[in-house]
């Protein structure tokens, strides 16, 4: 026992000796501050032109900041409470469907984070456009150069077989589909990181604050939420679209910051139910601050509603991003899954004068659609799985 | 243990309700709990019987099983029969059971707020019940509902009939619940901890109300954990422990001299003296032999033999029975009985 010769009975504790613990430096905070310092240094070095500018734009900085938040307040605490984290993970992986979803999301995150760095931007290769995936064939007349064998069909139709150079085929610009999927995943990951790092914590904080404080604070916050719930994010986005550059950042800011009202309300009503529970009273009577009570007692006990709702919001925003991109309101250089699906479904528009049916180039739309579906389904499954895994009563 | 008592019960009157060897199990994922494990008793017309026991003794399950009110599953009535006016309620089709349940046997529950539907006014709920039982025009039903509310002591019933349950206090809700129970003029009211959720002054009024109900000839089966409530209401007492009835008898004699060691322990807890043993958490009730033996100060070897001991007469009194080997033939119950008398005395002085 590390306590050495400290008395181990409560009546022998010398209370005047124990100072009130003021552990302001937690590992999470340390990591966060270190990360911020690193960013600051990088910015300064860039500004002073000591290191070359890598062309980081707003979005990259926001994403990096979001990643830092997720790392320091999500990953670090999980490592600190590794026993709990391990139990949760074990629970999660013990059910096949949820386990599969967790593995999928894990692979997705790694690919999305590292893929674009490794692969770089996809090159235009018009001569290789509309190659079919490996093991399938596409009409040959679209290609300037068919990489695979050419198969004779009926009459004058000739088919070009897919090759391993483009295992998932290519789109109208000759971008490899695999590469596009990775690009789309990175866009999606940006959405997820932004939502998880900023939107969900904001919603939770507002809900908990309103519920715990009550009174005028509650009135004010909830009136604001009511107003916010009445403003359709899509309208805000279109207004922004008219006046500023279209960018993913605009989408994230408008949708992200206008869509958390529902979660805030949910969190507030759950908080109200916990506020008068015995353990909250006890913690308060011991001098625990409201922040302590919220962190230690309220938030862990509302995960049953908060976690699924948060994951629902993640899935929703991923879908919104894809939807907006599908409609064409996206930055041309962002290869979102949504825009790729759209290209595959509208060959008249994308196919540069070629006559074709969407089903003839099915791979262009099917693969990203599949990726989108899997991602959203996994998010939902993980949401429910985490809820169950976090509840010791189950 | 079940066959010897039926002949001994007051045979002069035909019992209104006869329960014989009732057994109810709860099946959970992990185990099967024998919630009610062979309960037999009878209840006569106009009589008030209290079923007393601590939480987990199976008293509520017993009551709700009488009319098959327990949710099946997880509960399962695995044995025994319940006869109401000589008709077997379990053998009869469920329709008849339901009719008897609504018309002849009425239930009152511990938590009145949850027994009333919060989205309907108390008037709507009362009138609905009245219309189920008799064919009356709406206005008459309303008048009758007001009358019932007045009968159970709701002030300004004509105004309050249109209020929602949340606008009533706990005691008033319980009165409404009793009014609903009385609509069909039942022969038997089964009240499960009817006064547990209310304050003592309100409890006193509810006790008086229940006494009025029985004065009208209705039988009453009260489930309670509170010896005081039992003392105030009961003609006869059934003491339940670990799913079985361990002692029964007329209230006055039983209070004067509790015979079964468990009953004695219960009385002792009222005197403020704990059983003395360093009993912390309730140990699991053994599955055979006397259920109480792990906690019983008088336990002997014979206690772990066979099944729960049969009911033996206590003293010369044919009505008093205790399920304890010390009262068996050839044994001298003197020491055990004496302990009971001392406890009751200590109790009396405390009051």
């Amino acid at each position, binding site marked *: *026992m*590390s*306590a050495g010769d*400290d008395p*181990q*009975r*409560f*009546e022998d*504790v010398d*209370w005047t000796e124990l*100072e*009130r*613990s003021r552990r302001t430096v937690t590992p999470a905070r340390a990591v966060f501050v270190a990360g911020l310092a690193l960013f600051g240094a990088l910015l300064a070095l860039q500004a002073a032109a000591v290191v070359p500018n890598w062309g980081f734009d707003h979005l990259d900085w926001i994403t990096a900041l979001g990643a830092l938040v997720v790392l320091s307040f999500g990953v670090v605490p999980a490592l600190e409470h590794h026993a709990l984290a391990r139990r949760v993970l074990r629970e999660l992986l013990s059910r096949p469907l949820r386990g599969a979803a967790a593995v999928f999301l894990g692979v997705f995150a790694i690919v999305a984070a590292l893929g674009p760095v490794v692969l770089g931007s996809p090159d235009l290769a018009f001569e290789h456009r509309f190659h079919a995936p490996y093991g399938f064939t596409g009409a040959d007349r679209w290609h300037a150069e068919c990489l695979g064998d050419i198969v004779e069909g009926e009459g004058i139709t000739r088919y070009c077989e897919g090759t391993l150079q483009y295992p998932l085929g290519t789109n109208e610009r000759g971008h490899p589909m695999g590469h596009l999927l990775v690009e789309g995943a990175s866009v999606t990951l940006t959405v997820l990181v932004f939502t998880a790092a900023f939107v969900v914590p904001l919603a939770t904080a507002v809900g908990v604050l309103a519920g715990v404080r009550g*009174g005028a604070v509650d*009135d004010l916050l909830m009136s604001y939420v009511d107003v916010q719930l009445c403003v359709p994010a899509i309208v805000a986005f279109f207004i922004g679209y008219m006046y500023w550059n279209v960018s993913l950042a605009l989408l994230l800011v408008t949708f992200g910051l206008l869509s958390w009202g529902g979660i805030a309300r949910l969190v507030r009503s759950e908080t109200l139910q916990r506020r008068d529970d*015995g*353990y909250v*009273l*006890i913690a308060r*009577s*011991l*001098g625990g601050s409201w922040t*302590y009570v919220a962190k*230690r*007692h309220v938030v*862990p006990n509302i*995960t049953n509603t908060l976690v699924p709702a948060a994951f629902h919001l993640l899935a929703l925003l991923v879908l919104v991003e894809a939807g907006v991109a599908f409609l064409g309101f996206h930055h041309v250089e962002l290869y979102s899954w949504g825009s790729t699906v759209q290209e595959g479904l509208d060959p008249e528009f994308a196919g540069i004068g070629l006559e074709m049916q969407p089903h003839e180039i099915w791979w262009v739309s099917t693969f990203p659609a599949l990726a989108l579906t899997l991602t959203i389904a996994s998010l939902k499954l993980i949401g429910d799985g985490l809820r169950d895994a976090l509840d*010791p*009563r189950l | 243990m079940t066959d010897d008592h039926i002949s001994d019960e007051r045979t002069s009157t035909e019992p209104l309700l006869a329960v014989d060897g009732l057994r109810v199990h709860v099946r959970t994922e992990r185990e099967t709990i024998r919630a009610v494990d062979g309960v037999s008793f009878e209840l006569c017309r106009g009589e008030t019987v209290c079923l007393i026991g*601590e*939480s987990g003794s199976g008293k509520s399950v017993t009551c709700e099983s009488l009319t098959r009110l327990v949710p099946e599953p997880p509960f399962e009535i695995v044995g025994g029969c319940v006869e109401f006016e000589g008709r077997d309620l379990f053998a009869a089709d469920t329709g008849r059971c339901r009719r008897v349940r609504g018309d002849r046997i009425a239930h009152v529950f511990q938590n009145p707020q949850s027994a009333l539907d919060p989205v309907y006014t108390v008037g709507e709920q009362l009138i609905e019940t009245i219309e189920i039982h008799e064919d009356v025009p709406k206005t008459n039903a309303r*008048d009758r509902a*007001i009358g019932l509310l007045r009968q159970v002591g709701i*002030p*300004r019933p*004509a*105004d309050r009939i249109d209020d929602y349950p949340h606008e009533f*206090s706990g005691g008033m809700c319980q009165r409404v619940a009793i009014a609903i129970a009385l609509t069909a003029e039942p022969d038997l009211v089964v009240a499960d901890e009817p006064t547990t959720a209310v*304050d*003592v*002054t309100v409890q006193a009024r509810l*006790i008086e109300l229940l006494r009025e109900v029985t004065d009208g000839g209705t039988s009453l089966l009260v489930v309670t*954990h509170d010896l*005081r409530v039992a*003392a*105030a209401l*009961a003609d006869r007492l059934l003491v339940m422990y670990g799913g079985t009835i361990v002692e029964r008898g007329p*209230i*006055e004699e039983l*209070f004067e001299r509790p015979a079964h060691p468990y009953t004695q*322990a*219960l009385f*002792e*807890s*009222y005197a403020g003296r704990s059983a003395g043993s360093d009993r*912390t*958490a309730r140990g699991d009730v053994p599955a055979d032999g006397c259920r109480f033996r792990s906690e019983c100060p008088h336990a002997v070897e014979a206690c772990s033999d066979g099944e729960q001991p049969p009911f033996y007469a206590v003293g010369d009194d044919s009505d008093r029975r205790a399920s304890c080997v010390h009262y068996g033939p050839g044994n001298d119950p003197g020491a055990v009985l004496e302990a009971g008398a001392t406890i009751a005395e200590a*109790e*009396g002085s405390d*009051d």
Partner: protein
Amino acid sequence: MTERFPKGDAEADRAGASDTNSPLLEVDGLETHFPITTRWLRREVGRIRAVDGVSFAIDRGEAFGLVGESGSGKTTAAHSILGLEEPTGGAVRFDGQLVDELTGWELQQFRRRAQLVVQNPDDAFNPRLPVGKSVAEPLALHGMDDEERRRAIVADLLERVGLEATDANRFPHEFSGGEKQRLSIARALVVNPDLIVADEPTSALDGRVKADVLSLLDELRREFDIAVLCISHDIDVVRRFCDRVGVMYLGELVERGETEAVLESPAHPYTRVLIGSIPSLDPSDRSLVRPLTETVPAPSDPPSGCRFHPRCQELIPPTASLEREDWRAIARFRFALQEGTVPEPIAVDSGTRVDPETVRDAFDLPTDLPNEGIEDAVEAATRAVADGDLERARERLAESLSTVCERTQPEAGDECEHLVRCHRYDSTIEAEPIPWRG
């Protein structure tokens, strides 16, 4: 409030307590009102007087019981003492120091030395934490950063409250109600407090478990010389556990004294109703005391004068010439009309008219009262009731049946040791106390 409870009320109580040193906890004229506000702008439209002038003192190691029915304000009083609710008036002193002036280290000390045991064992523990963590929470909050040491202390303590050291790793839902209450006690004890505020410590338990938990608390309190403020609606618990007791009604302390004295020969009419409502353990004695009327007034609009007056069996008559039974019947008539309880035969609400005689019979009203003014008033009121005009009847009775109980608030009684807030115990008012069970 200061006029009603002159300074020294708590001091008087202190004098009555056994120890002459300053008491551990001193509550003087404590007042906690909650504003009733409109939904918008939070304009205050009224106040719920949950606690309205409560004074008592608790000595080191003493058990003081606060009894009362739901809505009497006893839990709010406890929360106000611990600072969980903001008191709107009065003073709470802990170890001679005003609690709301404590800061820093001293406040920290108060928060350690005064612990709370909450009522409902089912929500007393954070369901997401193993109970060991919950029991150790006070240690962690009070600066014990060494987790091993916390664990060792908790393990030792769990065994001393009758559980096992390994129970620390289990979750709250795995325990029974009685076990959870033991854990609650352990959590309160772990920081070695001087005062435990136990809010209905056994109301969720029954029978032997209740007795066990109560005797555990009692043993621990004696062993460590801890004062306990025990909030309960259960007279049996108070009788068994408390040295002294205070009785609350509608936010006020109406009687306070040695447990024996208060419970065996209650002086205040409300205490008498409370005690008399408990069924006797003797089945041959089935009498139950009734208040004059049943309805408990709302704490937002308490009756004037003595708050118990519309329900008081011992209400002081306007003149001494009235027979006690007669006066009681008249008073009951008046307050029953006020709360709207009309007996069956009259049933004014269904629109039928009755004759005044029926009204008199229904309320058992006496005839030929010696006092003319009262006779007239009763006569007029019965006629008004017969006509279905309850409002007029109420006014007429209120006009001519005015009693001192309704007009002025009773002060603390003359005796310091045994406080009774009732005019009958005030020597300046011409009314004798009625003997208990007399």
